[in-house]
């Protein structure tokens, strides 16, 4: 019997298929403007006894995909389940995705006790990084490594994507090194994330998931701030889909 989990995020969609508790298939694609078509593409050839959807597209998927045996859970639950499978002792899950940031606090039995999410504004999320990388004309994949080359940390005051972009632009106009601006932008994200972690009283170990976990600068600044190492799984994008698949298989 196969069980699938699909995480339909604002930027990408991931699928994980389990058989006897082992991952037998996983794949990822961009969300695009037609997320249902993208989901179908990912689902092609997959026969699962049950599929569980999570992410912001979960409702559309359960209502419109035409697939039976579909259920939806929130990202909070999916990430908590997935993270615990990867690292059973995890107490805090941090996910920075395309349009939202969430922190989830688990008790020692792995139950979600509290969570925080950013509000409607995408400040401090993957979207913010994407905009800032574009403003500094650095490819998003290497933006973190680029920032780590800084020789000093410029303080960026604004957390709003629009304001931070104009702040970065005026810094560039004053001749500031792009890498120094870049690390300032990363620090702004980390400060914001850290305050969310404090609000849930986040205990260590912390597992960092979502697309932004690929960014080495966010990781290193966050560790500096936490004064502890954080765990980044091999496939940080797949944690939500894995959690959904585990839920599908009945945990």
């Amino acid at each position, binding site marked *: 019997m196969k069980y699938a989990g699909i995480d339909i995020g604002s930027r990408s969609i991931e699928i994980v298929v389990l058989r006897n508790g082992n991952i037998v298939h996983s794949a990822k694609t961009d969300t695009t403007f037609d997320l249902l078509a993208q989901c179908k593409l990912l689902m092609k050839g997959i026969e699962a006894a049950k599929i569980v959807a999570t992410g912001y597209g979960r409702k559309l998927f359960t209502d419109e995909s035409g697939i039976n045996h579909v259920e939806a859970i929130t990202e*909070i*639950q999916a990430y908590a389940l997935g993270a615990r499978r990867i690292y059973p002792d995890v107490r805090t899950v941090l996910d920075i995705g395309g349009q939202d940031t969430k922190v989830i606090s688990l008790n020692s039995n792995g139950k979600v006790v509290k*969570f925080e999410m950013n509000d409607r504004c995408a400040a401090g999320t993957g979207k913010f990084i994407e905009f800032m990388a574009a403003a500094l004309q650095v490819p998003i994949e290497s933006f973190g490594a680029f920032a780590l080359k800084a020789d000093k940390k410029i303080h960026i005051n604004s957390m709003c994507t629009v304001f931070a972009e104009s702040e970065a632009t005026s810094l560039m106009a004053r001749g500031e090194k792009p890498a120094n601006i870049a690390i300032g932008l990363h620090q702004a994200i980390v400060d914001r994330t850290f305050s969310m972690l404090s609000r849930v009283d986040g205990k260590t170990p912390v597992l960092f998931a979502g697309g932004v976990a690929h960014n080495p600068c966010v990781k290193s600044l966050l560790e500096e701030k936490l004064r502890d190492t954080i765990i980044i799984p091999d496939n940080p994008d797949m944690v939500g889909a894995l959690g959904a698949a585990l839920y599908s298989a009945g945990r």
Partner: protein
Amino acid sequence: MSEDYKDMWKSLGLNLEAHDMLLKALGKGYQDIYMTQQNRPAGMGYFDFVMSEVHGLRIKELIDEKRAGRKVIGSFCVFVPEEIVLAADAVLVGLCTGADFAMEDVEKLLPRNTCSLIKSAFGFKLGKVCPYLESADMIVGENTCDGKKKSYETLNDLVSNLYVMDIPQMKSIKGRDLLKAEYMRFKNAVEELTGITINSARLKKGIEIVNNKRKAIHKLSILRKAEPVPLSGLDALLINQVFFYDEPIRFTESVNKVCDELEMRIRKEEGVLPKGASRILISGCPMALPNWKLPWLIETSGAVIVGEESCVGERGIKNLTDNSGNTVEELMEAIIDRYFKVNCAIFTPNQDRLKDIEEMVKTCQADGVIHYGLQFCQPYLMESISVEKALEAKNIPTLRIETDYSMEDVEQLRTRVEAFIELIK
């Protein structure tokens, strides 16, 4: 609503085109949110009717009352004592503050970072779409939060009949003295407006009518706590909202009818949702008609709301006014005592509100609390943090929501609400 009211609306100076738009949106919202609910008590039919005629028949009634010599007083707050208004044969109505309207015009007069409730009041005035405001002979503003207090200075330029009541900020002897002085001044103002001298018999009668209205809601609040829950939180909220608009005696009868039906339902274990649905207590800012956003999200996510610690809810109707006094002075003291117990977040400190929330969690057997804060509402947002901490220290799961009247954040809110329901299951 029928075409018959067009002339009436015109005579009130409403902008018919804008008003039509508002009614269409209201009708659609009501249809989508209320009429899609399952297993509603038949007695809710009355409230459906009230809603369908909220700008029609009810306004016609008010105009008829005015023709018969009664005065209409409009209010934005539960601190305006209805007892005094009724004692002078006047009618008290809540004014519209539950939906965004004419926001571009509003933001010319008020800072953008003003809460939705205040902006809404201005939107209805500037858009000329609130027949209650336009029928009012006196509009009562009250110095509760800074936002309202300062915005009345601006509202005063837009209307000719604004009366501003000062409200204390501390539950001290001085605070009570202030409330007393202001209620006495209000009594005089109402007497002057109506030409009626309020005597003890009149005041007693006013108190009785309002107490009966509150008693009906008290009964409803107890009945709706049954398991399975016999009445949706949306419907209970609607009843609490209509409280501010309807003719009080008819309203009381209609609520009591719903209560009779709920008693039957409880005997038959008939619920709006099956047994075991997560039970949520809402606490925080008032939800004025037609603000149904958060309750709708909660109740379409598989949970049910069992109480509202809110001015449109328990906080607003909690205590009765002692009717045993024989003189105007004694009865006025009783009115002051009753209102001075309202635990609004404008008071500092305000620990009694926390006690109220904890008490409601117990009596409602709530699985968790969702704290509802309107964006930019300083008093409630400030308290939301200490309320959350205090409740969590007692292992009561709490979710803080901060939002406004717009629908753009609905999906983000839905994720949080659903995740909270998963957490408390």
